[in-house]
């Protein structure tokens, strides 16, 4: 028996099911609402123009990741070139250490999957926004979006060891940023 062809996607379906995903990813990568809105519009119009070429949601989701990441990187590059032009130099921020300095305090957290309140979303998103770009991209794609290291390497043109190295440093920096909010109270 031949499997039926997937139904053709409509612009409304794409809008409802994918626009929020595109926006959330772009916003986390760019850390800026206005830029994320521009990227979302660009990507959405691109996908609707090419809608006839997609068969099924899985193919579209993969493509959307790629196009959103590329659009976000291109916009950031444009901004960086302008800043470089204005400031006369580029800033490549590299985390020079991963290990925490000083004592690591125990976190007061449940052992299983956390359920986050809205204010915790904001707290974590703010911490993501503080990561340098090269680490933020990898952290968002790996730990928020759940992409595997090989996919991220392809999207960002990095080797898998480079993805892992950046991801580890990003997690350690995130850990440091979140520590004050999750550390257990000292016993009296």
């Amino acid at each position: 028996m031949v499997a039926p062809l997937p139904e053709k996607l409509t612009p409304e379906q794409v809008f409802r099911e994918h626009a929020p995903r595109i926006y959330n990813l772009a916003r986390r990568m760019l850390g800026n609402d206005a830029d994320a809105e521009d990227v979302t519009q660009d990507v959405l119009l691109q996908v609707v123009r090419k809608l006839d070429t997609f068969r099924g949601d899985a193919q579209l989701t993969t493509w959307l990741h790629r196009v959103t990441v590329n659009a976000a990187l291109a916009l950031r590059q444009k901004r960086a070139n302008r800043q470089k032009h204005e400031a006369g130099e580029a800033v490549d921020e590299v985390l020079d250490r991963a290990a925490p300095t000083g004592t690591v305090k125990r976190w007061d957290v449940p052992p299983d999957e956390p359920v986050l309140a809205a204010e915790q979303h904001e707290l974590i998103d703010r911490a993501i926004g503080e990561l340098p770009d090269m680490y933020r991209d990898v952290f968002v794609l790996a730990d928020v979006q759940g992409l595997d290291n090989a996919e991220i390497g392809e999207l960002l043109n990095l080797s898998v060891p480079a993805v892992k190295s950046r991801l580890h440093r990003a997690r350690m920096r995130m850990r440091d940023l979140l520590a004050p909010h999750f550390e257990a109270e000292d016993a009296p």
Partner: protein
Amino acid sequence: MNCDELEPLLLEFVSGELVIAVRETVDVHVTGCAHCEALLISYRHTVRVAAALPKCAALPAALEARLRKALADQMGEGEDCR
């Protein structure tokens, strides 16, 4: 194994990629070291909270209106994307 040697292994430890012998060495160290046990718990929780973030939170109303207009314009205003 000491604390400095453990830290670079955390990523592969939590994703289950370490070979068994190294994994066991990490387990033994963490069991006897409060610093590394706290570091491992906090590292794992950092990964978990990121995964728990919403990936398709609703669009701001103004953006939704802007996108619908842009889509309608692109489609020649012949089809309402609603």
